[in-house]
């Protein structure tokens, strides 16, 4: 069992030696993933025994340029700053337990998003000193609860609304700015990614210049089962596109339970030609979370998954033979 006995003791080696993830009956095979870190509930991270709506596992995580991870442990009023070996560098204090997304900006700022209570985006330096705070409601954002992604880009910080369009709320100096709006998810070099379920069990993807209404085309992605949800859509520094799709088969009879599901990870070039496909057995569990997948600066896909025992961080290298 890949389980810790002391606070944040590194489990990387044990996991890499194949001991992972035999953690509880609910842990699926790690498949092609490289297990990176495992943190047990309660004594190290989160609070799984809540009595209210959701469990209080980490809602989000982010990959730092140095290969380390920021893990949003909001119920314990902190962000765990982990180095590339999974060692705890520091706790970054949070003022409330209602943050539900975390990101980093160019290695010099930490961003924490509170969509539902304070409805603000908090900007801190790497050790947690507050630098700025911006309210979410305003032009482009009627309801902060409808923010569906936080997207740090070289030209500033964008918040996606309803998976339809994105609003730039901070400029490249992380100062509030006149809000710009683009359809889809802005990526670098003046482009945007657009993804949508096509109503026929597949997904339509497009990559266009920002707000280019004349753009046509795109690709349709399908899986081995109907796609229920687009889990994540992003692009890396080289323009490689990553789409993570939740495939699910429902029972045709009441109560229509999910009979099988998985995540299909599709990697495409900037012309949206497929380069690779991966399959993750790790899916959203009853321990709800907001951000499950990130594209790292190392061009790997990182996944945060929960089991009854704790929090798993895994990474996927689509270029591996």
């Amino acid at each position, binding site marked *: 069992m890949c389980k810790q006995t002391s606070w944040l003791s590194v489990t990387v080696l044990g996991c890499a030696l194949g001991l992972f993830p035999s953690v509880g009956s609910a842990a699926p095979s790690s498949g092609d993933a490289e297990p990176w870190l495992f943190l047990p509930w309660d004594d190290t991270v989160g*609070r799984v025994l*809540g*009595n*209210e*709506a*959701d469990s*209080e596992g980490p809602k989000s995580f982010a990959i730092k340029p140095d290969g380390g991870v920021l893990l949003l442990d909001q119920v314990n009023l902190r962000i765990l700053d982990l180095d590339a070996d999974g060692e705890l560098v520091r706790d970054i204090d949070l003022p*409330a*337990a*209602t943050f539900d997304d975390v990101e980093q900006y160019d290695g010099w700022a930490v961003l924490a998003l509170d*969509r*539902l*209570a304070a409805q603000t985006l908090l900007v801190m330096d790497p050790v947690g000193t507050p630098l700025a705070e911006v309210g979410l409601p305003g*032009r*482009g954002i*009627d*309801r902060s*609860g*409808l*923010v*569906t992604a936080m997207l740090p880009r070289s030209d500033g910080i964008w918040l996606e*609304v*309803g*998976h*339809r369009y994105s*609003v730039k709320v901070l*400029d490249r100096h992380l100062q509030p*700015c*006149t*809000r*710009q*709006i*683009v*359809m889809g998810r802005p990526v670098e070099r*003046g482009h945007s990614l657009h*993804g*949508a*379920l096509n109503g026929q069990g597949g997904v339509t993807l497009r990559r266009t*210049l*920002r*707000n280019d209404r004349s753009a046509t085309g795109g690709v349709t992605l399908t899986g081995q089962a*109907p*796609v*229920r*949800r*687009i889990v994540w*859509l992003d692009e890396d520094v080289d323009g490689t596109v990553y789409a993570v799709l*939740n495939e*699910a088969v*429902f029972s045709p009879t*009441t*109560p*229509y339970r*999910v009979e099988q*599901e998985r995540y299909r990870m599709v990697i495409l070039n900037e012309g949206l030609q497929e380069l690779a496909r991966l399959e993750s057995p790790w*899916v*959203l*569990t*009853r321990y*709800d979370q907001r951000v499950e997948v990130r594209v790292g600066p190392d061009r790997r896909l990182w996944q945060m998954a929960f089991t009854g025992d704790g929090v798993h961080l895994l990474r996927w290298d689509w270029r591996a033979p």
Partner: protein
Amino acid sequence: MRRLGVVGAVLAALCASTPSHAAPPEEPPEAIVCRGTSAEGFSYEWGGECWCGNGCAPDLTSCSPGVCTPNAGSTGCPDCTHTGTYGADCSGFVSKAWQVPDPHATDACDVARYVASSFTAEHSYWNVVPMNALEPADAVASSTHVILVIDYEDPFGEHEVVEAKGCIYGIVRQSRTFSASYSGARRVSLSSCVCSDGDDETEICGDCGTRQRTCESNCLWSPWSPCDGPDPTGAAAVCTPDGGEGQCATGQQLCVAGWLTCQAAEATTEVCDGVDNDCDGVVDNGTPESLGEGYPCTNSCGAGVTECIEGAVACVTPDGGICDTTTPDAGVDGGGGAGGSAFGGCNCRTPGGPGSLPLVGFIMVLAWLAWRRRSTLG
């Protein structure tokens, strides 16, 4: 909710054992959605089920929301304290929004309600529905929590919902997804016809454009279309984007998703035109290839190489003379792109500063002359 509050448990037991409840009122799904959205901003109260609404909006003035505070050492209910009259927990909220087991005004407190797990099984007041066919006014429930869906799925497959999320959150409206531990439920007695075939409705969006919906053949409204509208024209179309440099400092006002936005001109490859095409704050600082520099050329002063000078490509001879009656030789496209060209006119002059002939260009001229000589001899 993982456990029932005492009050909730008693009331739930009453609900389950009392057969004399009235059937839910016949009403359209919009009525349930309205009732649900009117709870946004009220507090989470363990065992509670009341709030005040004004149409589809919460009335936080007439009825002050309560305050839920986790007790010392606790992070939430039931180890919490609630002050104030109004508030609801997850199942109290959905029970009231659905008007089950009995219809009551939203501000009626201490009335019968169900618990979250009740909504996961078939019931005379609701039917279980597949999670991939959710509609507005459906509920989504697990053994511990229940949520009201208020819109069709978005492009990624998430839904807008209202839920009593917890002590520190209160009742919130948000976009979210559901794990396989949730199942869907649809209340009975929904009006089967809420509009007339062919009807349509239009709403104004943020600060430009509109959205529409039409009444479909089943006499139910279609989902709202995305907000869209025409872009401003004329003087209203010109804008100055924040922080833009070079050609990105000018923009066009667009109507995007119902909001006016200043779309900066796109950064492009730097060419020789006196404009900061790549928006890095420096004019004409591209590569020799993009600027059209270093190509052999001839002019009335003799043979030279092209160079970008003051926003135009000029032919510069080895002695430093520029003559803009220049004949580009093979491979010279007049400036490497959309930039201006200095080819034309005839005034030999001596450039200074940036006009000085680069060594590489001079070498290329010599190489070209040697090649030409060999070609001629051959």
